[in-house]
């Protein structure tokens, strides 16, 4: 009986040590593992980039309208076309109310997605969506201030030998430029439309 008790207590001690070790490694793994509560996560719009018409655009230029921001790249065959199609459908359904919303598609692949490449691509989904690009440094800075993640991934079976991993959620900012919430890129457009309608109306 005593042996069993010792064995059980040893198990407890080992489990506690393992938990502590796990907790400590998680704490030391940087931003990914030491994940903040998504509710508390803050995104901020602060950028100066070139749009697909060649015009310089900064976040201040969109004050007074809601900004719906989506990061992606045009060599992306799955997530980005679906995200852009979702945004286009949302804008279509918002109809006249859509005038209060500016959808922005910011590339995380400035090497390939020059403003003119974006001009070929983005308007195909919907006339209201504005594509934004910039130098590699500008995009790095933009991602940093927005607090979004992107990474170039070497991938032999992708065009030019690389693909991009990136934050795929839509970020909504209010007319004062304050972050409001995220929507997932694969959410049903109707859900986003009814949420936006409620917000625009108030």
């Amino acid at each position, binding site marked *: 009986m005593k042996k069993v008790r010792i064995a059980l207590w040893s198990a407890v001690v080992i489990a506690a040590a393992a938990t502590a070790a796990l907790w400590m490694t998680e704490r030391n793994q940087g931003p990914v593992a030491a994940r903040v509560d998504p509710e508390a996560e803050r995104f901020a719009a602060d950028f100066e980039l070139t749009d697909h018409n060649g015009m310089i655009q900064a976040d201040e230029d969109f004050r007074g309208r809601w900004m719906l921001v989506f990061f992606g790249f045009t060599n992306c*065959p*799955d997530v980005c076309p679906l995200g852009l199609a979702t945004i286009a459908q949302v804008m279509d359904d918002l109809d006249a109310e859509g005038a209060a919303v500016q959808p922005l598609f910011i590339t995380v692949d400035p090497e390939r997605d020059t403003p003119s490449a974006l001009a070929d691509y983005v308007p195909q989904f919907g006339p209201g969506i504005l594509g934004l690009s910039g130098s590699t440094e500008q995009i790095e800075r933009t991602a940093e201030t927005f607090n979004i*993640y992107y990474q170039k991934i070497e991938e032999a079976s992708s*065009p030019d030998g690389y*693909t991009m991993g990136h*934050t795929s959620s839509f970020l909504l900012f209010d007319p004062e430029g304050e972050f409001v919430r995220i929507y997932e890129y694969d959410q049903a457009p109707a859900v986003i439309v009814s949420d936006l309608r409620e917000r625009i109306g108030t």
Partner: protein
Amino acid sequence: MFKTFAKAFQSLSVALLMGLPLAASAQQMSEDASIVVEKPWARASLGTSRPGGAYLTVRNEGSESISLIGLRAEISGMASIHETRTNSDGVSSMAPADDIVIPPGGMIALEPGGYHAMLMQLQSPLVEGETFPLTLLFSDGTELEITVPVLGIGARGPEG
């Protein structure tokens, strides 16, 4: 709702007008009917410089497990199955998929945000309203050629 109907009707009329084989939107199966492919569709491409994406579902009506191991398509110099993964931080990335096992009676879906047929080195653009042949390669040696209709660039699913 009406819009959806109108859209569906429109695509149907377009399909009929263009004389597309209706088989493109119906079931397509292997000779012994053990593998059934449904809801194939591809997104229209802009020219040939960027990879195209195609989707479908595969049902295993046989009594043995099979795996979808690859793809071949004349329209693509390099066709493969890729998988999109989105982590809990909302970061999405894409990588070549391993063989996809389909148990007897099971079904797998290639759909946006998950598995997709990635069509690289397009030999000609994917044009809305047209179709192209795509061959699915299975672990038991079955090669099943299906016809994939091309929908608009803004399509979100097999219904457009």
